[in-house]
């Protein structure tokens, strides 16, 4: 836990009041409705806002306290804004070079050719920002930030202003970034799907205050948080690839020692992966059924049963080893099965998405 911050910002009608310790590895998502203070918090971390009395320590180095205020351009961070905000008077290559040139050669860890290749920018270098698409611009702005070899990457909804196609273009890059570079990322999003795909750690903000923070799965399945009460309630399970190819175009994963089959993917054996399982795709049985179409059947223990989004439904939280799985069933079924805490059950899983 080595990003410590404490900020109080008063913008008249809006007050941000946060005290946080964030991990300095993996992706931390700041999640909340618009106006919840995500962007303000990110701007405080970057030093683009200078609230009096704020405090910020990154990896033992004080960026801000009562006496110190390290200006943004001296902080080892990259910032990707919601709109790509490329410099309109510079070509793509010059945009990429802008930050790179200002980092002393000895401190450059990210090379131009790496970024061009990682983000697929080969054909764009000689163009001006107004000659390329929105998705391309956002990729350039991401590359431009990476080329400053930051120790911390801040991203303010980099996908929000993009259409679905452009999003699909960029998300894989962000995943590669997370997996291949040991670069801590703080990522703002109000899309839970993006969060599930990218985040390891989640900070939930509401009305300028931190409502909850913790590991992704713990927050997604927490009974007091709103996530489980949404239509798309889901969990993100940690698994490893055990057999990349088990025939029938399937790959076998191991979750807490139990097999889980997913559509075949090209991931090597032993590789940790994250799978998203929606509560509505999980059914329950008292005995292992033998003749159903469900591909996966996991042994679980019932943790508790909560009211569902509709009066006819119940949301059941299930313990799978150290992890938590969610299941949405009808209240009639819940009653018929006589569900109670501690009960041993079989979770039947319809859809599993690799994320």
């Amino acid at each position, binding site marked *: 836990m080595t990003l410590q911050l404490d900020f109080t910002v008063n913008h008249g009608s809006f007050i941000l009041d946060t005290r946080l310790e964030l991990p300095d590895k993996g992706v931390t998502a700041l999640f909340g409705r618009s106006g919840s203070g995500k962007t303000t918090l990110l701007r405080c971390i970057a030093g*683009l806002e200078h609230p009096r009395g704020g405090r910020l320590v990154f990896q033992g180095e004080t960026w801000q306290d009562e006496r110190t205020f390290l200006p943004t*351009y001296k902080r080892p961070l990259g910032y990707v804004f919601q709109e790509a905000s490329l*410099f309109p*008077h510079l070509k793509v290559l010059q945009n990429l070079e802008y*930050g790179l040139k*200002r980092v002393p050669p000895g401190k450059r860890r990210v090379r131009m050719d790496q970024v061009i290749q990682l983000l697929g920018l080969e054909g764009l270098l000689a163009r001006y920002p107004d*000659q390329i698409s929105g998705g391309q611009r956002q990729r350039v702005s991401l590359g431009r*930030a990476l080329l400053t070899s930051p120790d911390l990457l801040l991203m303010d909804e980099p996908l929000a202003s993009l259409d679905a196609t452009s999003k699909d273009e960029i998300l894989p890059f962000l995943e590669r970034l997370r997996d291949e570079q040991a670069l801590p990322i703080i990522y703002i999003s109000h899309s839970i799907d993006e969060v599930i795909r990218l985040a390891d750690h989640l900070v939930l903000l509401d009305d300028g205050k931190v409502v909850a923070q913790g590991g992704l799965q713990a927050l997604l399945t927490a009974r007091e948080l709103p996530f489980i009460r949404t239509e798309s309630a889901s969990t993100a399970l940690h698994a490893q690839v055990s057999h990349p190819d088990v025939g029938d175009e399937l790959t076998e994963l191991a979750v807490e020692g139990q097999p889980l089959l997913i559509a075949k993917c090209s991931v090597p054996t032993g590789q940790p992966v994250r799978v998203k399982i929606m509560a509505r795709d999980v059914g329950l049985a008292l005995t292992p059924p033998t003749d159903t179409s469900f591909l996966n059947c996991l042994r679980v223990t019932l943790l508790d049963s909560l009211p569902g989004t509709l009066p006819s439904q119940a949301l059941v939280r299930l313990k799978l080893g150290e992890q938590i799985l969610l299941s949405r069933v009808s209240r009639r079924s819940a009653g018929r099965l006589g569900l109670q805490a501690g009960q041993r059950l079989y979770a039947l899983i319809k859809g599993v998405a690799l994320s």
Partner: protein
Amino acid sequence: MFGLTEADLSTFWVTLKLATVSTLILVILCAPLAWWLAHTRWKGKVVVEALVAMPLVMPPTVMGFYLLVWLGPRGWVGGFLESIGLHHLAFTFTGIVLGSMFFSLPFVVQPLQNAFASAGIRVLEVANTLKASPLDRFFTIILPLSRRGFLSAFVLSFAHTFGEFGMILMIGGNIPGETKVASIAIYDHVETLNYTAAHSLSLVLVLSSFSLLMLIFFLNRRFKVVGAA
């Protein structure tokens, strides 16, 4: 040249010097003011904007009169200068430079303010996150993005001073080689019915203004980079 006398040519050089000096100083001084006006959220900004625009509506002789009073030996500025052992500014070249600067203020502030406002704050924040110091940001971002604004400011202020008459006559007092500018010389020639000399000097002004504008518009076209506003 064109049958101009030495005295006529000297008025032309005084005009050129006046326009160049006052424009350069004015652009440098006005850039911070325009920047502030473009980005401040202070409500009293309209008062400043109105003050800056005043020379647009005031008759040049009125401005010239007030400046003459202030810059003269009994005025606030002139009196103060005299009290610390310097000379007052009425009927001096410095005096008409100051006058021209007041007179051209809106023509410099407004294009700069518009240019700064349209470039926006975001690009500067981006440059800040890309390790550019404030001075670095000014030269690599603000200046290139608002160069057309600077060009407009230069042209408007220069041209405006080039043709100014009433105010310079008030403050400058028509001293040959010092404060006698071309427009006043032309007026004098007409007064003495020396139409030939008036013609020659006018033609020089017309041609030099035209060449200047040609040069400026040529530069402006070269500045028109794709993507740059």
